[in-house]
């Protein structure tokens, strides 16, 4: 079975675009004031408007937002601060938790 699976996996990797397997920059934003689901959406939408943002995941209980960028793009603290502020909340912390290739 492995004799079949290995070449298929190799083919898939070869044909996939670089972004599919390259590690992306991932950031953790600590956002103060987030306390209900409806408000979380505003933060998601504002962060999603930043160029290069691929995915935004809110962890309501922890008050953190995980932002995953597309390969080759980065998020600055200023960009994050502005997006969170425009959503009506306060950015308390900003850190990169995964470095892209």
């Amino acid at each position, binding site marked *: 079975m492995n004799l079949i699976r290995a070449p298929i996996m190799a083919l898939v990797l070869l044909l996939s675009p670089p972004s599919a397997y390259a590690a992306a920059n991932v950031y953790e934003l600590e956002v*103060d004031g987030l306390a209900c689901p*409806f*408000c979380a959406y*505003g933060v998601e939408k504002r962060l999603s408007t930043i160029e290069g943002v691929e995915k935004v995941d809110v962890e*309501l209980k922890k008050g953190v937002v995980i932002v995953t960028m597309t390969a080759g793009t980065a998020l600055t603290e200023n960009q994050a601060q502005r997006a969170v502020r425009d*959503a009506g909340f306060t950015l308390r912390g900003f850190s990169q938790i995964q470095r892209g290739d």
Partner: protein
Amino acid sequence: MRALRFVGFRRSSAVTDINDSGVAGMPKHLILVFFFGIMGGSHAVFGAPITFNTALPVAKGEFVFRQQFIVSRSGDDPSGADRDRTSQAAVSVLGYGVNRKLAVFGVMPYLSNELKINAGATRVSRSAQGFGDLSVFGRFTVVQRDRPGRNFRVAPFFGIKAPTGEDDATDALGRLPPSVQVGSGSWDPFIGVVATYQTLRYQVDSQLSYRANNEANNFQAGDIARLDGSLQYRLYPRKLTGGVPGFLYGVIEANLIHQDNNRVGGIEDPNSGGTRLFVTPGIQYITKRWIVEGAVQIPISQDLNGTALENDYVARVSVRLNF
């Protein structure tokens, strides 16, 4: 003058809204919220309370929409005319975040009003349907204290109700009384302040507001002052896990509403206006993209002037959308 007697109490305006403290800061903010509560509120528009507004933000450049369906019944007529008034309203609200502090809202009701009354030996029904008066207002956040998992905000608002609804509808008996018309015919400004304290477990909102009603068609509804309070408590999930789960809130609200006497031809109508206190239990389910909710305003005290018509109940269901 006769038409005024029909009015009693006009269509409720309700058809229409920490960087440092930690847990020790909670009581101070709650006290402030209740202070604003004790002082009123109007315009059921946006955010977490069901019968009035909130101070929670609308993100810059984003829209929020709310559609309410409201049924209000008034009866228990002390005048002997056995008046029975029913108002059904579909109220659409659109909010837009101009920036992180300023949000603007538009409120447009579609109304179906009916008044049944004994006229001699016969029972008469008078009714009107159509779009009512458009209200627009702005809300500006003046206090914002954000902490992990909670926030406190205070936001005054100011707006005006424009006379977009028909105010001179007639039927076979002549011109309809103001309580049946879908529009008031007057430009009526309103002002207020709303305060919100929100945590992951519960939310408290309070609003104080005042609406100055102006004269049109020789009729002036009494000004309205409101004090509203709301507690929303998360019933489900009892324990938060990861991500953004939907919240089921149990809601209890109180609405203290005072209306001055109406005036007809500049003369005060002694059978209009008064003070009402509603208690409003409700339920609310909140997700990231939408909210669905329902509540019933139950009058527990009605100190009305003369033969002003008493409210039986006001029932509301609504949905809100983030888009």
